C-alpha cells in the first residue's frame, strides 16, 4: 500500500466540542448486549429459561378448570417462590455464559485501555458491564416472574385478582434482586481476576458450588442453623423464603433471614470493592 493514498483521504475537524455524556455507561451496556444477542447459545438459554413460565401458566390454567386441584397445587405465594427458586440454576448458567468474559476479554485484548483512556470513570465502566448482566439475568428471573404473575392473574382472577395479591409483584422483584445482584458481583469479580473467560466461568461455579458444599459439611458437623451462612445459594433461598413468607427448608429453617441478607449485601459490596481495586491495578501496571 503506498503512502500517497493517505493524502487523498480527508479528515474532518469537528466544528464544536463534544459535551460530556451524562449516562456514560449506556454505550457499554448497549454494545455488550448487542454482542450477546448475536450468539445463538445465549438466545437458547433465554428460551429454555422461559419454559417453566409456560409450565406454571398451564398449572394455573388447570386449577381454574378443576378448582379441586388447588388443594394439591395451590395458586399462592409458594407457587411464585418455587418458580423463582427454580430459575436460580438457569440464572447461574446465564451468568457464567454472559459474564465470564465481560472484563476478562477486555484485559486480555487491552480493551480496558480503550475504555479507560476515554472520558469514562471506573464506575461508568463497571456500571456498563453490570447493566449487561442485569439485563441478561432479568430475562430469566425478573421478567419471567412478572410475566408469570400477570398471566396467572389474568387466568385466575378469582384467586389473584384482589388487591392483596398485588404485593406479589414487589416480592418477585425483591427476590429477583436478591438473586441477581450478588451473582453479578461475583461473576464480574471472577472475570476481573482471570484473563481467560473459561477460568472465570469455572471459578464462578466453583465458588457457588463450593460454598454450598461448605454449608453441607458445616451442617453435618455442627447442626447449627448458621451453617447456611456459608452458602450463597442457601442465603438467597432463605431471604426468598422470608420475602414470600413460605415455610423454610430443614437446613435453613432456623437461619435468621436478616443474617442471610447481610451476607449477600456484604458479598455484593465486597465484590464491588475487589472490582475497583483489580481494574485499577491493571490500569496502573500496564
Amino acid at each position, binding site marked *: 500500500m503506498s503512502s500517497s493514498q493517505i493524502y487523498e483521504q480527508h*479528515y474532518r475537524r469537528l466544528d464544536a466540542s463534544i459535551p460530556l455524556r451524562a449516562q456514560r455507561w449506556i454505550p457499554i451496556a448497549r454494545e455488550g448486549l448487542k454482542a450477546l444477542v448475536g450468539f445463538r447459545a445465549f438466545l437458547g438459554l433465554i428460551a429454555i429459561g422461559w419454559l417453566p413460565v409456560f409450565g406454571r401458566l398451564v398449572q394455573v390454567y388447570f386449577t381454574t378448570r378443576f378448582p379441586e386441584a388447588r388443594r394439591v397445587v395451590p395458586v399462592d405465594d409458594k407457587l411464585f417462590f418455587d418458580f423463582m427458586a427454580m430459575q436460580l440454576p438457569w440464572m447461574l448458567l446465564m451468568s457464567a455464559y454472559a459474564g465470564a468474559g465481560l472484563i476478562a476479554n477486555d484485559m486480555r485484548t*487491552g480493551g480496558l485501555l480503550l475504555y479507560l483512556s476515554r472520558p*469514562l470513570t471506573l464506575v461508568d465502566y463497571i456500571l456498563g458491564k453490570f447493566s449487561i448482566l442485569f439485563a441478561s439475568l432479568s430475562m430469566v428471573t425478573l421478567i419471567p416472574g412478572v410475566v408469570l404473575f400477570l398471566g396467572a392473574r389474568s387466568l385466575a382472577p378469582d384467586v389473584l385478582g384482589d388487591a392483596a395479591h398485588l404485593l406479589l409483584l414487589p416480592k418477585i422483584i425483591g427476590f429477583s434482586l436478591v438473586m441477581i445482584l450478588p451473582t453479578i458481583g461475583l461473576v464480574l469479580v471472577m472475570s476481573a481476576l482471570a484473563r481467560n473467560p473459561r477460568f472465570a466461568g469455572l471459578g464462578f461455579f466453583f465458588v457457588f458450588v463450593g460454598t454450598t458444599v461448605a454449608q453441607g459439611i458445616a451442617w453435618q458437623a455442627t447442626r447449627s442453623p448458621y451453617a447456611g451462612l456459608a452458602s450463597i445459594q442457601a442465603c438467597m433461598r432463605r431471604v426468598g423464603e422470608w420475602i414470600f413468607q413460605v415455610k423454610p427448608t430443614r437446613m435453613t429453617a432456623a437461619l435468621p433471614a436478616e443474617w442471610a441478607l447481610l451476607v449477600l449485601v456484604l458479598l455484593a459490596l465486597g465484590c464491588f470493592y475487589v472490582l475497583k481495586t483489580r481494574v485499577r491495578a491493571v490500569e496502573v501496571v500496564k
Partner: protein
Amino acid sequence: MTETLVQFEALTVRYGSRVALDAASGRFARGATGLLGPNGAGKTTLLKALLGFLAPSGGRIEAFGLSPSVSPLEVRRRIGYMPEVDAHLPDLTAVQTVAFAGELSGLPQSESMRRAHEVLQFVGLGEERYRKVETYSTGMKQKAKLATALVHDPEIVLLDEPTNGLDPAGREEMLHLIGDIVTLRGLSVVLCSHLLRDVEKVCENILVISGGAIRTQGRVEELKKLDRDWYVVRVKADTDNFIAEVRRRGGEAQTGPDAWRVALPQGATVSWIFDAATASGTQIRHLRKAEDTLEDIFLRATSHAA
C-alpha cells in the same frame, strides 16, 4: 513562544516504593513534540499521569489548564491516546471499534459511525474496515489504534511507540500519517519513542527523559545549535601535526566518524583554522560548520542520568 497545551512541574509519580517520575518538569507545546527516552525512562508513566490514570505523589501536571487528577474526564475528552500495547475489543470490526470509541468519548451514535468511516479511510484502512481487528496484521492494528485515538477529534494525540513492530514501509507510512495530522489537520501530537529517526522526522520539539527526569527539552533546531563554534575538518596529510597545532593554539579537537571536529577558541574566526593548517604544514580538504544530531543531543542528555 508557541502555546503550551500540557505543563508539568516537579512531577513525581511512584509505583509503590519505586519512583517512576522524579520531579520532572516540562511542557508540550502546540505542534509535534517528541518524548524521547530509553526503555523504562518514564515516558509511558508521564502519559498515564497526563491521562489521569496515575495520581502524582508530588508536583503538578496540567493539560489545557486543567488537572487530570481533578478533572480527568474533561482532560481525556480532549486527548486521543494510542497505547503501545494491543487495545481492541474482541469480535468487533474496525469500524465498530472506532465508532464505539467515538461514542465512549461522547459523540452521538450516528456521528460516531460517520467519523469512524472517515478516520479509517484517513489512516488507510478503508478497504479493510469491516474486518475484525484481531485478524489484522501488526501494521493494520497500529493504524486502527491511531484511528481510535483520532475519532473524537482530540486537541492533542498521545502516540506511545506508534511504529513498534512495523516493517520499514509501514513505519514510513505511519510517520507520514502522523506528519499529516500535525501539518495539514492542525492537531498536536506527542510522539513517545526511543527511535530517534522517527522523532526527528516528525517533531519540531523534543523532551528527553531518562531515569524519571527531563534531561533536556526545546526546539530541535535550537538544541542542535552548539554553544561553541565547531567545524568538521579534513586535512590533506599529517593530521597529527594539525591537531597538535590546534590544541597548542587553544582550540579543541575531537575525532569524528570520518573527520575531525575542531572548536575555535573564544573570539576566533574561521580563518584561525587555516592559520593552524598553514603552521602545521598541511592543507584543508574539507571544512563545514558542525551541527549536533539528535543522537548527540540524546546521548548527552541521557549520559547525565547514567
